[in-house]
Each structure stands twice: as structure tokens, then as C-alpha cells.
């Protein structure tokens, strides 16, 4: 997500009105429970496709979208805001004279969508003369009328607001009672009702759900002026409200008593732990810079996977289409042909648009392609990219990878990152086993600051919690830790991966790309993983 948009999300309009414009219009909570009749959507899609074909389109796809979001925002003992938003409309993409055209309208009538379809064809025809080569689409067989829903147990949108407010107020009270100076906690709930139709003969109705429950606890030492923040250890997930049930079976207790969460989150428990740990951070030992063996928890490693593998293996970046915004990639086509050694032979990384509970899981992508799981890195070697229908041929493939996505009906779909995950180790190994073999290391949990260059070579990552490892034992908390890496060297230093019993998902709601900028939500799974001899810097400074 573009920083400016993210700031706007938190901004208030004149008179204290929160600006929901980036998410659509504000609606009442009960309207979150409804959906557009599928017959209405089909009629709109048919009207658009007929108009496009009559105007000369060789291909047309139509997305009838209704995007719903709910935010419950609290701090300490106050509810700051409850906002529900809706954005509905129809986006039409066509191929005419070998070029793409796109137009969108929020008027949900057959006349309006037919007009938009004609506009899309006109734009395509206008773009065609400057096109260097005609668009080549990998074939897709129509699937007729099908539907799919994120497998959720409890629809977040139907849970009463009072229950949500009570939950967050309980979380905040627990932290304040435990001694937090400040806490903010938020529920961010998403339902994308997406209908896709194309001239290939598909009519796909999908109901996608996501949930995110971020929080941050702050501890302040007024005397010294020092403050520290401990973020929650949850992950945004492709789940319903059941994610917040805090099931005991989904908790992992680390060797130093830190509780990590898998497919279920206990927000109150984490708030109490966060309060204690934020206080500990005020007096924790400042790290001595140098080379360390790093033990990285899945809720930390996910962001590193995202930045150093997910992005560089997006084919549009590799080709140069994102040069002015997201950047290009060091992992160029010649490296794919040569099966470039991306990491150690323990490193197996897959892209997967089907993984249950993940943010990117759907049955069909926004081009109507059946989603799948495929290899990007196998035994440390580069073996694949992420490509859409119009990119597959460039990689010499005959099918799309099914990773096209648009964040709104009004934006054109394009290649977006699939869930990119590191496969667990094949041999039995727990986190305790892994740490017992580390002589001089640091155990890092949770996301921190992250920055990487425009070709994805040089990266720096912080974290939420840091612990010193000496001679196979966790000795004390550390602070001021960040590690600097060069992508292929970092993955080459991967020396051990815990087994599948430790596998958990990290996620991001706001992965930004494209101009105008679009966001997408994506998960990254892994087990706790060890990297040897990584350069750690000390980030403490004095302002005098």
C-alpha cells in the first residue's frame, strides 16, 4: 500500500469525519449481510460481453464486485470509531485489435455496463497502434456457472458490533490492568463478493472473507523519556470470526514461554504478554553488532520471504513493467533458464493460491483461471515465476499460474503475488531442538521495520521480540536488533528448518503495487528456520 494512502486511512475529514473514500461509501452494519442476486450479476455480465463483442472485442471479461469492509478502532478504554464501507460496480476488460482496454462503472444497469464495455473497446483500439506486439492469452476453458466461498465457520460480518466492541474493550482493559501505558486495538474485516464472467464461457461467483486484528502496546519510562512498542503476534488470515476463538490447539509455546499463534488467536492473552514484554524491552540489553546465527519465527520470516522471494519472482517486475514504482528484479530470465542457485538445498519455496486459511486463497483468480500450487524454488534452485494469462508465453508456459487480482471493481486486474511459502523441514525438529544447536545466535519473533532495494538484493529487517541464544540456551531479551542481508547469500545461509508441526502463516493486508496503486492481501507460511552467520547491526542512537 502506498504510504500516502495508508496515512489517509487514519486521517479525519473536516469536522472529524473519517474519510472512507478509499474503501467506498459508508453503510449500516446490517447491509454487510446482504449480497447481489446472482441472476442480476449474470445479466449485467452478459450485457457487457454482448456489447463488447458487437463493438469488435475478441475477448471480454467482466467483474461485478461488491467490496465490504468493517473497522472497529479502539484505544485504551475508548471506542474511537466503527465504520462499515461498501464499494460496488462493474469492471470490464476487453481485447480488441490485439490490445487491452478497460472501463468501469458503478451504475449497475445493463445500459451502463454496455456503454462501459464500448468505452473499453474504444480504449483498446486507441492503444493498439502503439502496441509493439499483440497480447497473447494463455488458453482457459470455460467452467460454466460455479460458486465458491472461503471456508469460514463464523461470518465476521454477521457478528454484532457490540460483541466486537466488548472483545476489544476486554483486550484493552486486560493490558491496562497489567500495566500498559497505551494500547490500540483494531478489527479490520473484509468480504469481497466477486462475480467473474468471460467470453471463454465462465460465470464464477466467489465470496471471499478475511480478518485482521492488529494491536500495539506501549510502555513508557517518563523519567528517562524512553518508550517501547510491542505489536500483537497475530496474522491477518483468510478466516472468519472463529480466528479470534483462541483455541488452545493452535498455540505454540516457545522455549522461553513466548506463545505463538497459528489458525486461531487469543488476543487478550497476547495483550497481557505484550504488556510485560513492552516493559522488558525498556531495559533489555542492547545488541552487540556482529555475525550471528538467526532463528526466525514464522511470524517474522514471512515478511522476509515476501520481500526477498515473493516480489523478485513476479514476472511483470522481472520484465520491467513496474520499473517506475515497485521496481524490477535481480532474478532475471537468464537466471531462470540457468536454474540459478537462490538458496541452500534445504530451501523449497512454493506459490499457492489454494492454501486453506491463507489471505490469497480463492478457487479462481480474477481472470477466471483455476488456482493451483506451483514451485518457485526447488532444492535451492530457481524454477519458476508468477505469471498471468498474458505473461505465460513469455516464460514458455502454456497456462497461467492463476495469480491475477484487482483490489476493486474499478481497477484493472494484473499480476499479484500468490501466497509464497517455505516448505517445512523433512526431518523431525522442534524450535527447542533448533535452538539447542545454536552457539551464538538471536531468536527473532514478529514483524518489525523492513526495507529492500528496487531489485530485491539488499534488505534490512527488524522484529518485534529478540532473544539472545548462548550455547544452545535462550539467555535474555535483546533490543536494537536489525539484520542486513543480500538475498541469495541469505538463502544460501539457511541451514535448518523445523518440521511441519511448527508451520504457521504470516500475512500482509497491504501489499502495494501498480500505478494507480492497488493493494492485495497475501500470506506466507513457514516453520521456524535457522540462518547462519548473518550480519546484525545495532540501531540505538542518541539524540543528545
Amino acid at each position, binding site marked *: 500500500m502506498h504510504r*500516502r494512502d495508508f*496515512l489517509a486511512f487514519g*486521517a*479525519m*475529514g*473536516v*469536522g*472529524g*469525519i473519517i474519510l472512507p*473514500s478509499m474503501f467506498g*461509501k*459508508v453503510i*449500516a452494519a446490517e447491509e454487510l449481510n446482504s449480497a447481489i442476486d446472482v441472476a442480476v450479476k449474470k445479466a449485467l455480465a452478459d450485457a457487457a460481453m454482448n456489447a463488447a463483442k458487437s463493438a469488435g472485442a475478441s475477448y471480454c471479461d467482466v467483474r461485478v464486485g461488491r467490496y465490504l469492509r468493517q473497522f472497529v478502532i479502539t484505544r485504551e478504554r*475508548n*471506542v474511537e470509531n*466503527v*465504520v462499515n464501507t461498501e464499494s460496488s460496480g462493474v469492471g470490464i476488460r476487453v481485447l480488441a485489435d490485439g490490445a*487491452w482496454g*478497460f472501463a468501469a462503472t458503478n451504475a449497475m444497469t445493463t445500459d451502463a455496463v454496455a456503454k462501459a464495455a464500448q468505452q473499453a473497446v474504444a480504449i483498446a483500439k486507441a492503444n493498439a497502434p*502503439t502496441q*509493439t506486439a499483440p497480447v497473447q492469452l494463455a488458453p482457459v476453458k470455460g467452467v460454466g456457472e460455479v460458486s465458491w466461498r472461503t471456508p469460514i465457520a463464523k461470518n465476521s460480518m454477521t457478528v454484532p458490533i457490540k460483541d466486537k*466492541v466488548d472483545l476489544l474493550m476486554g483486550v484493552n482493559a486486560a493490558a491496562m490492568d497489567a500495566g500498559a501505558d*497505551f494500547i490500540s486495538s483494531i478489527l479490520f474485516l473484509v468480504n469481497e463478493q466477486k462475480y467473474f464472467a468471460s467470453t471463454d464461457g465462465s460465470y464464477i461467483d466467489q465470496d471471499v472473507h478475511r480478518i485482521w486484528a492488529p494491536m500495539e502496546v*506501549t510502555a*513508557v519510562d*517518563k*523519567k*528517562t*523519556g*524512553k518508550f*517501547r512498542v510491542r505489536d500483537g503476534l497475530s496474522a491477518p488470515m483468510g478466516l472468519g470470526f472463529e480466528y479470534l476463538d483462541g483455541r488452545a490447539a493452535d498455540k505454540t509455546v516457545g522455549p522461553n514461554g513466548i506463545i505463538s499463534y497459528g489458525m486461531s488467536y487469543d488476543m487478550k492473552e497476547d495483550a497481557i504478554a505484550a504488556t510485560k514484554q513492552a516493559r522488558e524491552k525498556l531495559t533489555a540489553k542492547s545488541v552487540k553488532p556482529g555475525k550471528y546465527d538467526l532463528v526466525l519465527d514464522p511470524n517474522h520470516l514471512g515478511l522476509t520471504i515476501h520481500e526477498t522471494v515473493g516480489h523478485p519472482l513476479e514476472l511483470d517486475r522481472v520484465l*520491467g*513493467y*513496474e*520499473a*517506475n514504482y515497485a521496481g*524490477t528484479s535481480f532474478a532475471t530470465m537468464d537466471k531462470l533458464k540457468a536454474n540459478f542457485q537462490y538458496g541452500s538445498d534445504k530451501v523449497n519455496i512454493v506459490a499457492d493460491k489454494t492454501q486453506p486459511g491463507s489471505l490469497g486463497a480463492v478457487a479462481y483468480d480474477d481472470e477466471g483461471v483455476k488456482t493451483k500450487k506451483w514451485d518457485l524454488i526447488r532444492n535451492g534452485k530457481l524454477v519458476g515465476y508468477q505469471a498471468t494469462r498474458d505473461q505465460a508465453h513469455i516464460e514458455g508456459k502454456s497456462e497461467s499460474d492463476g495469480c491475477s487480482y484487482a483490489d476493486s471493481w*474499478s481497477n*484493472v486486474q494484473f499480476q499479484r503475488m500468490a501466497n509464497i511459502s517455505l516448505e517445512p523441514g523433512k526431518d523431525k525438529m522442534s524450535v527447542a531442538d533448533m535452538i539447542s544447536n545454536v552457539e551464538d545466535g538471536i531468536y527473532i519473533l514478529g514483524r518489525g*521495520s523492513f*526495507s*529492500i*532495494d*528496487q*531489485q530485491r*538484493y*539488499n534488505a*534490512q529487517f*527488524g522484529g518485534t521480540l529478540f532473544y539472545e541464544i548462548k550455547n544452545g540456551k535462550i539467555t535474555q531479551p535483546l533490543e536494537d536488533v*536489525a539484520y*542486513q542481508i543480500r538475498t541469495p547469500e541469505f538463502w544460501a545461509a539457511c541451514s535448518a528448518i523445523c518440521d511441519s508441526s511448527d508451520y504457521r502463516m504470516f500475512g500482509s493486508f497491504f501489499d502495494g503495487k501498480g*500505478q*494507480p496503486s492497488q493493494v492485495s492481501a497475501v500470506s506466507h507460511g513457514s516453520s521456524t528456520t535457522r540462518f547462519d552467520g548473518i550480519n546484525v*547491526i545495532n*540501531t*540505538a*542512537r*542518541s*539524540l*543528545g
Partner: protein
Amino acid sequence: MGIFTEAQAKDILTKVVAMSKADECTAQLTGQIQGNVRFALNNVSTAGLTDDTDLQVQVAYGKRVGIATINQFDDASLERVVRRAEELAKLAPENPEFMPAVDKQVYKTSPTFSEATAAITPVYRAKVAAASITACKAQNLIAAGFLEDGQSFVAFANSKGNFGYQRSTVLDYTCTVRTQDGRGSGWVGTDTQDATRFKVEDDIQIAMRKASASSEARALEPGKYTVILEPMAAAGLIGFMFNFFGAREADEGRSFLSKAGGGNKIGQQVFGPQVNFYTDPWDPVAPSLPWDEEGVPRKRMDLVKDGKVVALDYSRYWAQKQGKAPVGQMGNILMTGGTKSTAELVRSTQRGVLVTRTWYIRMVDPQTVLLTGLTRDGTFYIENGQIKYPIKNFRFNESPVIMLNNVEELGKPVRVPPDEVSMNIMVPPMKLRDFTFTSLSDAV
């Protein structure tokens, strides 16, 4: 629908406010027409146009607030949105930090609107893309860029008789130019409300020169260097810092502007004595709306004077709690400087590093505003007042607070695209001592 005149907007808002039976009502109309063209690999990739108008109504019963929005403006729709906001307010929990609507104010119009920008057509956008691509093709370079322009209006009224209306325009152009072999990269960006100030033919030459000149980069050891940050490079760090100029966070003890022992650093020497920042809605080059997000009138106001912090941003709630008079929060960031260009700063430098642009800046430690990020699109070694050769990009770990205590010289401020802050920003090129580069990047 797009843009309403002041009379049209006032008519709708007056009706809406009169319809409300709540204790108070604030209504806001916003509209925009935005166009864009995107190009990459010397081809236009996408072009689009959006048109959007929206009415937001906020009502309050006591401290219970409800908000509703709509994009239809007939009387029945207006009635519906007001009733919806009222229903939501009755169901809402009390907000202990609720502030009543602002009293009637007088706002002095600021120069945010340009007819030339509002008149931009798809043909103009296509010509900008074509001019960028043609120039690059002629020199065997590759262009990727984006032009976005738009006009907008905002109007608001409340049940205390307050009313405001203003139109704005913006043009934002960026272009990254790369060499065919991928070993050189340059960048240029323009951000202005006035399209007559934008000359694509001049801009694209800057990016092309940087691309060609940055090939064959050599590696320099990371460490502390005297640097010349071009305005865009400096604005990345400075803009980021101003996201943390809130009085509340400082008073609560969780900001770099918190004082040990409690309170904030207003009045303290936080930066070097050459450093001055102010905010001014009527700045002709980088103006802002004459009211802040709560409708409080803005004024010209020093933020940092001779390195001392003079003012922080107070919300009306926090100002009241701290016993301060409400002042409009900053809408732009203007840094003063001297008269020299970047080239003149280079000429007076014995040894140093010239940085075109900073990128992917993230907070490492909010306690000290330690930021990390990278240089890109043209980083050069300077010796004896001359650019000697291009160098590989660096990662930096530096705090803008420390950086602004190490100022050697400031050049002439210019407006740059606001990458890291949502406000218009003017920053000079600057020569700084001991800027901290912590590693090398192979990225071009």
C-alpha cells in the same frame, strides 16, 4: 458529476444541515475528476479516467456520533443519508474525546487551483507519455513513468453556520529511465498544482542524463560520508519525520519530541541552528487548504526556528485538554534554505557523495526517528568540486534529527513529490556531514 460550483455545493449542504434533527450536524461534499497514463518498456501500458462525488454527513447526539455517505443528491437521497447518520449515532457508544462542531470561521482562499491543470485532456496525457518515450528511444534508453492529474473540490457546512469551499488541482509526473543493459538508472519527478510549470521535455532530459551517467558504477566502502542530498532525497527523510510532529504523542511520552521527565520539546534546540521549517497555506508554489481536517483555520506558522521546535500539531481535543488555543494543524512543510543549486553545492565540496533519490524508507526506531532506506537512480562520488564517477547504491541508517544537526550548507528550496508524507513539501538540496551508509546494494 465531478466538480460542483460553490453555489451548488452550498445549496446541497444547507439543505442537509437543515434536515438534521440531531444536536449538531456537519456535512461535507467532495468531488474529483482524475486522469492518468502509465507507460513502461517504451510503451503506453494503461490509461484511465475516474470521476467521483461524495456527500458525508456526520451528526451527534451528545457524545454519540453517526456518519453516513451517499453519492446521489436529490432531496429524497439527502433525507435518507441524514436519517441514516442519525440512526447510527443513536446506536453508537459515547466518544469521550468528542469535540463539538467548529464555530463559524472566516477562511482566506489559498492558491490551490489552476485552470491549466483542470483543462488537461487525454490527448495532453498521451503527449506527455509520447514525449517521454520518444526522447528515450532516440538515445536507446527505456522509459517507465506515470502521469496523474486531477481537479477536486471540497465544501462543508455545519449547524453552527460554518461554511467552506475551495477547488484544487494537482499534476504529478514521475519517470524512471534505464539503460538497455540495465546498468544505469535515472529518475525525475514533478509535483505541482499548476500544469504551466511542468515541461516534460526538460524533465525527461534530467532522468536520461542520470541514467546514462550512472552506468559503470564503482563500489565505495560503506561508512560516514559528507553527502549532498538532492531535494527529493532529503524530502524522503524529512517528510517521514513530520509524520511524528503530533503534540499528543509527544506529551504522552512516545515520540522523539517527548522530554525526559515528561512534557514535549517545544522551545528546545532539537536541530542545528541553520534549520527552519514553517507552514503556510498561501505559499504560491506548495499551498494547502486554508483549514485543517477539523475545520480550524490554518495560518502561517513557524514549526522550527533556528533549530528550536516552535510548534507541534494539536488536535482540538488535545489542545483543550492541555489548555491551549486551537490552531489549524499543518497542511504543508516548507523548509528555508539559501540560493545555491545542487550543482553549486557540488562545486564547493572537496569529497562527498551526491544522492539523487532515497527509497523504501522505513522507521527503525521511533525513539530517535532512526530511518533506513536506500539511494537509487544516480549516486555519484564527488572530488574537488566535481562529480568523478557513479557509485553503487548504499543502504543508509540515519535519523533526520541527527542529519539536521550536521548541516554544512543549504541550497534553494524546491517543491518535490510527497513520497513519504501526505502534505506538499518544499526542501532545499543540502550538504551534510557524517551521513551514515551501512551497506552496499547491487541494485540499479
